[in-house]
């Protein structure tokens, strides 16, 4: 029995890949290009971070300069209200025998009042520095 055999001189070369010219640049170019782009990006990010830090410092110092101004006003107003409350207490309780004036706490620490009294009338005997207009008071 005769068998199938290759032709004389063997088979021709098999074309297992397309015969196209390589596209684009060398692969190493892409690696270095990626590094370069990333490096520039990080440079910008780090630069901006440093700038942000300085901006934060500026904002912080603006607030540091303003804090005592606001605090002083606030404190003065609170002291005014507390003293007015004490005076009001004296006027209200002057007839009560054995009434103990002063702090209700067991120390002379300044305790920020938890409640804000808003008297509907100006305490008699104390001069008002703010008198509402008639229209406003309606």
């Amino acid at each position, binding site marked *: 029995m005769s068998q199938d055999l290759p032709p004389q001189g063997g088979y021709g070369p098999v074309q297992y890949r397309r015969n196209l010219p390589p596209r684009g640049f060398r692969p190493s170019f892409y690696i270095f290009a990626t590094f370069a782009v990333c490096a520039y990006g990080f440079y910008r990010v780090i630069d901006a971070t440093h700038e942000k830090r300085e901006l934060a410092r500026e904002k912080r110092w603006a607030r540091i*300069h303003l804090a005592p*101004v606001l605090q002083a006003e606030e404190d003065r107003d609170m002291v005014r209200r507390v003293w007015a409350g004490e005076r009001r207490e004296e006027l209200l309780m002057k007839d009560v025998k054995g009434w103990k004036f002063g702090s209700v706490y067991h120390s002379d620490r*300044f305790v920020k009042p938890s409640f804000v009294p808003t008297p509907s009338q100006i305490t008699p005997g104390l001069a*008002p520095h703010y008198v509402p207009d008639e229209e406003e008071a309606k």
Partner: protein
Amino acid sequence: MSNNREPRFNQHVLVDTVPLPDHIPKVDEVGASSAPLLSAAFFIGARCRPYNDDYMKCKDESPGRGELDCMREGRKVTRCAISVLEDINTHCLEQFRAHWDCLERRNHLLWKCRKQEWPLNACVFEKIGLEKTIPGAPEGQTPIHLRTNVKYT
């Protein structure tokens, strides 16, 4: 939704109107809103830093009683801040107004208002002699408020 109800109070004036006693020297309120205060903050700091530090130190040293014990220092702080604002108002009102108006519109971001800030700084330095400096900024670099080449613009 019922959250658009008018508030109802049983009285109109909801403040205690009694003034401070007469033996306490009178001080005005600063009376500036947030944007002018922020705009003038570094000038207040330039002139009033000693008073401010004094007041904060006083409050730190008398915990619990600082509100009462440091009223004297507090008055100095307020008077100094008022003096700075008055000086700026008399000498550099136009630039000052432009700057705080910008701050008001730009969410109080200082870096968005450099264009208005530079003339104000120049005017205040020339006429009042107060200079904006940021303490603790790294040396050898242009201060952030003077840079022209910035990432945040």
